[in-house]
């Protein structure tokens, strides 16, 4: 499972991506718990529900299940255009 970070999320995690090889979170809610543990500064943003999650390039708005070969992206509201 690959987790990608963008914009100021990357400034908090200090990495662009990481691989979770084993015992990966089973769904988005479990992933959030892992993130909060590893990156305490993310907690308030996750709790305020401002971040967006994409699984395999598609937005997810629910507590979707995760598979070991998924690419999950976590990012703040977009600002292109």
């Amino acid at each position, binding site marked *: 499972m690959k987790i990608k970070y963008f914009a100021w999320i990357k400034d908090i995690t200090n990495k662009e991506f990481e691989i979770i090889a084993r015992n990966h979170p089973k769904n988005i809610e479990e992933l959030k718990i892992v993130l909060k543990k590893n990156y305490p500064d993310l907690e308030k943003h996750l709790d305020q529900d401002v971040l967006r999650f994409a699984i395999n390039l598609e937005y997810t708005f629910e507590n979707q299940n995760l598979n070991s070969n998924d690419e999950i992206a976590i990012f703040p509201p977009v600002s*292109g*255009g």
Partner: protein
Amino acid sequence: MIKIQKKDFNIEQEIKLLKDKYSNVGAVISFIGFVRDINNKKDVKYIELEVYEKMAIKELSKIKDNAIKKFDLVDCLIVHRYGRLDVNDRIVLVVCFSEHRNNSFEACKFIMDYLKKDVPFWKKEIYFKGSDWLENTN
């Protein structure tokens, strides 16, 4: 057509490339977004545009296909740049091709609204003192 690129684009050439394929097109509407010198009352030095490229292509393709269908467009082009962009540089080009003008006007607005809301690009504005990550508002 969707293009995500570092380099600048030539509006004349981009429009001609697609227009030359269709003799039934009567109206072409284009939107070009530029880096402004002042934003939120701060002097901008330059911006850094980050992109989640694979997803951006997918999202832009969906928006383009929706716009073509919804507004009966003949064709549609979206070019979005990333990387370092200075004040006065171009950020994005959206061009809609249709038989009559109202379809393309509506489609171009529609595409920009969704692009600003859903496509994974992020702007970091670098000021003469400090920097800010931006967030699009409605």
